[in-house]
Each structure stands twice: as structure tokens, then as C-alpha cells.
């Protein structure tokens, strides 16, 4: 009996060790993922030879490579996703991605040497992996901003599904805003899509 118990204990201990090690690998890989994505993003925004258009195209690629845009789009729409027609879903996702590309790429000109420093990771008790980082300006002390990336494993790599800046989740903020637009228009998703079209047009114009 004791032999069996000891054997079970060894199996159990090995299992815990292996899963522990695997979990740690997972976090380290996720950290490397954010590290390299940050480096690519900085390379893009600090590039002096590319035109604004080229940079926007580069950013769009970076976005689809690093982020699960369909997942985020669905999350942002919340329960309204289930109520949307297939046509609405397609148009919404396309608008959503373009709005993000235009909103952020117009800020590239404000870039002034900020760097990304990955500071650690944490695993949620669900599938999520969090990578903690700081965006800081080497030229100015005391300006570090805490940014946490929420990732999901996908295929052999990861996809970002949320960015939390100083405690404010971009996904939640967008979700709350879009939900409010739908709610104040009597629950009509078409109203949100209409507003997003106008929003994108305005972003393109300036």
C-alpha cells in the first residue's frame, strides 16, 4: 500500500513540476512576443524614410499580426454580436479595424523616443496570459506608464486581446462606449455602424 501511495505521490509531484515549468515557459514566450512586437512598433514609428501612408500600412500589418482583431471586435460589441446580422458583423469588423488603424497612426508624429520595457508576466486561472510592461522616455525620469497586455495562445504563438494602460482597458472602454451608442439608439446596431462610418470618414479627413 505504501509503495502505491509513494508512487502516486511521485507521479503527482512530477506532474506539478512539469505543468509548472510549462506554465513558466508560456509566460516567458509571451514576454518575448511582446518584446519583439514593441521593437517592431518602435522601428516603424521612428522610421524617417517611410511616408505616412506606408507607415499606416505597416501598422495595419503589425496590428493583424499581433492582435486578434476579430476577437476584440466581438468582445467590444458584447452581447450585441449575437443580435447582429452576418452583413452587419462583416461591416462592423471592417470599420472597427480601420478606425483603430487611423486613430493610432495619426499619433505617430508625436513619437519622441519612448521605449518599451517588459517587466514580467502573470497567468490567469483561465487561458489568459498577462504581460506587464512599461513605456518610458529615457530622456525624462518619472514618466513611465504601466501597460499590461492580455494575450491568448493561438496556433503556435499568441494574440493580444486587450491592452490595459494605467488600469484602463482599451477593450472595456470601447465596449462601454459602443454599447452606450446602441442603447441610446433604441438597441439598434445599425445606428452604431452608421456612427462608426461617420467617425472613420472624419478620421480619414484629418
Amino acid at each position, binding site marked *: 500500500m505504501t509503495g502505491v501511495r509513494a508512487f502516486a505521490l511521485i507521479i503527482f509531484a512530477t506532474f506539478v513540476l512539469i505543468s509548472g515549468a510549462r506554465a513558466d515557459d508560456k509566460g516567458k514566450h509571451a514576454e518575448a512576443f511582446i518584446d519583439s512586437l514593441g521593437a517592431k512598433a518602435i522601428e516603424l514609428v521612428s522610421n524617417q524614410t517611410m511616408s505616412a501612408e506606408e507607415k499606416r500600412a505597416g501598422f495595419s500589418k503589425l496590428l493583424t499580426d499581433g492582435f486578434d482583431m476579430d476577437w476584440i471586435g466581438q468582445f467590444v460589441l*458584447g452581447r450585441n454580436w449575437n443580435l447582429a446580422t452576418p452583413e452587419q458583423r462583416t461591416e462592423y469588423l471592417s470599420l472597427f479595424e480601420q478606425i483603430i488603424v487611423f486613430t493610432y497612426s495619426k499619433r505617430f508624429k508625436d513619437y519622441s523616443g519612448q521605449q518599451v520595457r517588459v517587466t514580467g508576466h*502573470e497567468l490567469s486561472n483561465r487561458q489568459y496570459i498577462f504581460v506587464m510592461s512599461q513605456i518610458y522616455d529615457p530622456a525624462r525620469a518619472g514618466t513611465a506608464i504601466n501597460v499590461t497586455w492580455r494575450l491568448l495562445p493561438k496556433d503556435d504563438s499568441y494574440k493580444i486581446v*486587450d491592452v*490595459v494602460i494605467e*488600469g484602463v482597458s482599451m477593450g472595456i*472602454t470601447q465596449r462601454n*462606449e459602443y454599447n452606450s451608442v446602441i442603447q441610446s439608439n433604441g438597441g439598434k446596431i445599425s445606428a452604431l455602424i452608421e456612427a*462608426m462610418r461617420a467617425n472613420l470618414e472624419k478620421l480619414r479627413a484629418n
Partner: protein
Amino acid sequence: MQAAERKKSVVERETKRTDPVTRFLRWTSVGPLLAGALMLGACASATSDGAVDNGDPIEPVNRVIFAVNDVLDQVVLRPVSYVYKEGVPDPIRDAVRNFLRWLKSPVILANDVMQGDWEHAKVTSARFVVNGALFGIVDAADGVGMPYREEDFGQTLGVHGVSEGAYLMLPLLGPSNVRDTVGLVVDYFIDPFTYLGDRNFQQPFGIGRRVVQAVDFRAENFDRIDDLRSDAIDFYAKIRSIYRQQRKAAVNNGVIPTDATTPDLSEEFDRQLPTPEAGAPLKASGG
């Protein structure tokens, strides 16, 4: 630690300067506010079984006040902040901000103590003493690993489990909620600088301090707020979401809850996962 005790006694002495009757009246004026807070809090949680709980039962009223605040921002605060940002050199603006932050030290310390956060109480006291050498205009403590962190009575209530209650848009003061509005009132009364000098000094000093605070905040976040406003489809809803998240983060001192047991943003993300994982949860192994 001794510094903490010393500062605490200073706070107490400052507070005791007024006579008992005045203090009683002040506290009873907070009483009805607290009762109102609990009632509104109950209203807010009663609607939480609805589809989307935005914690905002009086949204139409809030939106009207928000519209007025927005006009005031565009007509007064934004232009003034622009001139301040462009006309006043960086080092002077830094000194102004450092001084404003230094003035908050007693309130932060009192809240550290009420939260039982002795570690931060030590930092707050040390900051007050170190930076006090130059009346707070130079933040020397930040350079030696004691960065500024604000604590207020709204956060203290949050730490002790008081929920935020209904979202409120305050005239001139901006986004808040019932809990944080009570916090504003309590912080005002426990602040020794409220009682500094005579009556002819107190009011202009108090108003001036808050006006400069607003201009400093607007100037420091000038482009960020402008972008937020111009990019938003529903600016009001965006500000509400950001405010609620920021306050949650402030109560947790910036630690983002990563487990599903915490009833805030993790919950919304966990609901998004298609199927809950079967079997034992993955053990986190620190980083």
C-alpha cells in the same frame, strides 16, 4: 515611523483647532450625504440585473451637466490651459505641480492611516519632510524611490468594501460617483490647509488652489483629452468608462486583478471565452 507619528499629530492638532460645535455641524452635514449615498448605492445595484450595468441611474441628468462642463472646458479651461502650457516654461509648471501635490500630503497620510497602509504612510511622511525643505516645489523624493501616489477618502471607502454607488457628473468638478463625492467632502474637512490662516485667506486660497489644479491637469493632458474628445463617438460614455476603471485601479493601488474571482474587468473577459476549461485551473507560477 517617528515621522509618521509626528505628522499624524500635526494633522490632529490642525483639525482640533476649530471648536467642537463647528466640528459637530460639519460632521452632521456629511451625515445626510452619507445616507443619500447608501440609497443611491442601493438603486445602482438594483438595476444590475439588467443587460448592461453602467452604474449610471441618473444618466439623463448627468449628460446635461456634462454638456455644460464641456462648454466651460472649451470656452474657458482649454484656452487658459493652452496659454499656460505654451507660455509657462516646463520647470515652473513642474514646480507648481509639485507644490500642489505636496499640499495634498496631510490628506494622503490620513487616508493611508485609515486604509491601514503603513508602508505608504511612511512614504507619504518622508515625502512631506524631504520635499518640505523647499516647500514641495522640487520633488526630490521621487528620485530616491518614493514616487507620488494619491490616496483619498473615496479610495479609503473602496478599500473598506464600500461600492462606488451611482455615477455622478458634478458641475465644474467633473466625473465622480456617490462614494467619491462623499470622499471629496471628507477630504476637504480633514485637510489642515482648509483651516490655514484667517477667513479672508481661506476662501481665496482654497478656490485658487483648485483652479490651478484644474489648469495643471488640463494642460498636462492637453492633447490626450483633445484626441479623446474628437475621436469619440459617445464622449460622455467614454469618460464614464475611463473614470470608473481608473477609480477601481486606484482603490487597488494599480494592481490589475488577474483572476476570475475579482468582480470587474476579468469577469467580462472570462465570460467572453467560449467554453470554460475543464479540469483544474492552470497554476500560476509567478514571474
